[in-house]
Each structure stands twice: as C-alpha cells, then as structure tokens.
C-alpha cells in the first residue's frame, strides 16, 4: 500500500500536531488506563473485551463491505473457521493458538478465495445471498461432524490454566490488552487503507463498478483482495474470541444472527469509515448491557435484539450514512 494521501494539508503540516488524531489518541489512552481504574479483575474488563471483540469483527467486515461495497452476509464463515480452527488444532494436536490462529486465518483466506471466485461474478443482492448460502452450509457441516466440531453443543477449548503459550488466562486482563491492540491495529489499518491506492480502488468499485473499470481499476481483483483481507482479519478475531470464551458453537460461528450482528457496528457508526465500527460497536455493547440488566429484571428475553433493531432503524432514517457520515470518512 503506497501512501497516496491527497488531503490539502498533505506535506504542509507534517511537523505540526494532527488535531484530528486527538480523539482517537485520547480514547486509546483512557482504555489503557481502564484496568488501573476499575481493577484488574473487574467484570467491567470482561465487558470491555466483549465490546472490543465485537468492534474488531465490525472493523473486519467494514473493509470489504463498507469500503468495498460488497455486502457479505457470510462473514460468520471466516469467523467460524478462525475460531474452530484454533480450538480444534489446540485440542487435538496441542498446537499453540499463536500458530493455530494464523493457520485459521490462512484457511479462512483460502475459503474467501473460493467464495470470491464463485460469487464475485454476481452483483449486489446475489452476492449477499450466495454468501448466506455458504455460511448455512458450514453451519450444517459443523453440526454434522460431531467428532471434530462437537456438533450442536459446540466445542470447549481444553483449559490448562494460566499459560502464555496456550494463550489462556483466568484473568480478563491479557485479553483486554490483546483485544485493545487488535482494535487499534485494525483502526490504524483502516485509516491507512482509506488513503491508499487499494482503498481507493475499493471505494471506486463500491461507488460504480463500470466507472471503476473505465478508470483502470481491476474490479474483480479489487473485490477479491478486499474479501481476503477482511476474511483474514475476521478469522484472527475469531481466534482471539475462542481463547477468551474457551468455547464456540455452530450458531455463534455460522448462524445468521452472527452474520447480521457483525454488520451492525459499521451500519450504526458509519459504513466505510475508520471510526464508525468503533463507535457503533461501543454503543451496541453499552445498550446490550442495559437491556440484559432489564431482561434479568423483567424476565423478557431478547430486549437487546429489539434495541439493536430500534437503533438501526433510527440511524437509517435520520443519519443514513451512520453517525460518522461520508464526509468524515477519515475520522
């Protein structure tokens, strides 16, 4: 990715402070301080990990769907392959998740390649439908091959206690920092992507495929690399997810609910923006904590889904581009 920044200030203000970075830097600083404020065993850290895993999935999906305009409903596939792959390799071969996660990502990228080759000749809604079909197939497979996947009940990662090499910990603290690093890395990557040639290719394809081709953009290849990058990011997040929860099941991995949840942070926060999935994901987790608390009190289940739906509806009606609209793409 060559740096192709084209903002008017480019090259002029390099030595001065970039004020636009104040908010992200402040947020990161506050997050780093959080464990010292709330305590390293606090349940709040667990919530933060949940939020950041969720945000990271949103960031990964945003690359191909938000920036590249390819509305995948099949990201559960990449997530599931990353999570199951890491867990299976550890349980059956004792392979460290540090390697297992990377292999999961590689497998996921291979799946993305096949998926792209099969579906990128299709456009719009057909692409989305094809991706749904593929994830439903994998869900069936995961339920069927009980010996490998644990079937409907899912898979529990063999717990061996605190261990760096097994990437396991009783405390949420290591996961807090791991997921924070992941979210920050994905954020930085998205920002850079938006200003790179590849990012512009993705955006051109999203806006108008034929005009993109007429401008020299290799459309198929652009979609393919976008999906591959996004799949790799999703799978790595799946690997971290399964280390934190120590469990994965077919619904959580490949279910339609998961596929839809992956999209919500970007849709609410701002499709195709770097900050959108972060803000959107944070809002959703805050809301879900409140609704879970309410659900527990009122014995009404599914309030979180209801709230997500309501938020999405409000956003779509009043701020269609998401909270960070198009023009603040770089935010």
């Amino acid at each position: 990715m060559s740096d192709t920044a084209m903002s008017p200030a480019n090259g002029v203000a390099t030595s001065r402070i970039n004020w636009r970075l104040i908010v992200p830097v402040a947020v990161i600083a506050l997050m780093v301080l959080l464990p010292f404020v709330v305590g390293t065993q606090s349940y709040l850290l667990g919530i933060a990990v949940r939020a950041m895993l969720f945000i990271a999935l949103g960031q990964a999906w945003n690359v191909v769907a938000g920036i590249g305009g390819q509305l995948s409903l099949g990201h559960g596939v990449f997530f599931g392959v990353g999570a199951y792959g890491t867990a299976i390799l550890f349980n059956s071969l004792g392979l460290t998740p540090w390697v297992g996660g990377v292999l999961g990502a590689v497998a996921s990228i291979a799946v993305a390649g096949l998926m792209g080759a099969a579906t990128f000749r299709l456009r719009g809604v057909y692409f989305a439908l094809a991706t749904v079909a593929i994830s439903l197939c994998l869900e069936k497979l995961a339920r069927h091959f009980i010996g490998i996947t644990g079937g409907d009940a899912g898979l529990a990662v063999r717990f061996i206690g605190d261990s760096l090499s097994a990437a396991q910990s009783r405390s949420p603290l290591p996961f807090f920092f791991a997921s924070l690093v992941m979210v920050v890395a994905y954020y930085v990557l998205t920002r850079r992507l938006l200003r790179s040639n590849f990012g512009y290719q993705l955006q051109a394809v999203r806006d108008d495929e034929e005009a993109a081709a007429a401008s020299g953009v290799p459309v198929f290849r652009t979609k393919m690399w976008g999906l591959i990058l996004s799949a790799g990011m999703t799978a790595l997040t799946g690997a971290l997810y399964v280390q934190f929860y120590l469990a994965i099941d077919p619904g959580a991995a490949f279910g339609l609910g998961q596929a839809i949840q992956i999209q919500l942070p970007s849709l609410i926060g701002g499709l195709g923006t770097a900050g959108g999935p972060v803000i959107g994901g944070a809002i959703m987790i805050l809301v879900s904590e409140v609704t879970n608390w309410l659900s527990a009190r009122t014995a009404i289940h599914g309030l979180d889904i209801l709230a997500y739906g309501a938020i999405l509806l409000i956003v779509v009606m009043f701020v269609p581009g998401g909270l960070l609209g198009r023009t603040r793409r770089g935010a």
Partner: protein
Amino acid sequence: MAQDEVLRVEGVSKVFGGLKALSNVSMSVKRGEVVGLIGPNGAGKSTLFEVISGNMRATAGRIVLFGDDVSTVSPDRRRRAGMSRTFQKVRLFESLTTQENIAIAAMQCARSNDDWRGEVQSVMERLKLTRLAQSYPAELTLADRKKIEIGRAIVGRCRLLLLDEALSGLTMDEADELVGVVLSLNTELGVTIVVVEHVLPVLVSMAQRLVVLNFGEVIADGAPREVASNEKVMTAYLGSKRGAFS
C-alpha cells in the same frame, strides 16, 4: 497496419436478445483526429462505445486499439493502455471528492516515475476544477460533473478519448466552454477524440470527419459537408430532409 491508426473497429456486431444493436460496423480512427459519431436515438452509438471500451463484448468482430487486438481484453486494461471514455449519463464516484475522482484514474495508469499528483493538479487547472477539488459530485452542477468525468478520463496517458454526449443538458455557455476544453485536449495534448453529439452544428465545428450510424449500421463516413448531403443520412434524419445539419 498504418502506424498512426489508433482505433480500428472490424465487422463488429452486437445482439441483445433479438435486437441487433450493431450490425457489421467497421470504422477506423487515426492519431490526432476528432471524429463525430452521429445517428438517431437507438442507432447504436453508445453500444459501440461500450464495445470499444470493453464494457461489453461484441457478438462478432474485432476491436484493434493502438495496433493490438483487444477484443477479449478487460476494460480496465484497455483504459491503462490509453483508451478512455465518458458515459452518456455521467457516472462519478459519488462518495469521493473531485480531486479523488480524478486521482483514482491517475493512480491506476501511472508508471513508477510518473508524477501523477502533479498531473491531477494540472488537469484540474485545465478544466477549472481546482476550486472544487474538495467538493463532492452531488454538490456540483451538471457542467462541473461532466468536467470531472472528462478529467478522470484524460489523466494517465490517455491517447484516445470517447465522449458520449459530452454537451447534452448544458447551457449554451457551458457547452461553448466545454467544446473549447475538448478541442484543446486535441490540439495541445494530441488526444484523439471520438465524440457523440446530437447538436450537429456544434459537432461540425469540432470534427474533421463524421461517422453516421443508423439501426446499428454505418451509413456514411466522411467529411461533414459530404455526409450532410448524403441521401441516406437525410432520410435517416426524417423531418429535416432538406439537409440534416441546418
């Protein structure tokens, strides 16, 4: 083949279902020419552009660009080889600024030592778009949107430019300005141009040669004067039998 032949269309046909939009069309364009492509609505002008640019594959026939048969080459590669086009209905990247719209094409077509950033700036100056560099297409007038599309088309070593109804929908003044810009591309940058345009007097003032399509067939090809007095052309433009262009 002639060294200075930029484009050759050889026996091209294009069928949509039962409709023959192009039927055995042949034509040739030399380096430096400005050729007008005319014909009644539905004659196949835009379809011919689609086939030349590679957006559609011809049902039969060959497209030779800069001496190479590109009939099976993708549209993005034809663009990088130096062939650009605009669309009858302007198509821009709506979520990107004027400058970004133009820069995308410049980036795709640049070779390693090209100063594509500088080129984007100079093209925006040429088209008087510099003050709109950070604007989004939706905020702009049709004339400016057309200029952005032309800017996007000419950056990155464009040698052959296909303009589909470059002037339609513009006011007289806007059209005049754009004609000037387009001609300067030809005279100053040496870009070869094929232009579709319905306002014939304007076209006659721009083009050295006219190619006339009717029902997917080339019915005339020659200097504007000859073409204007061609009988087939007069019949094709019913209602103006006395001379198609007056």
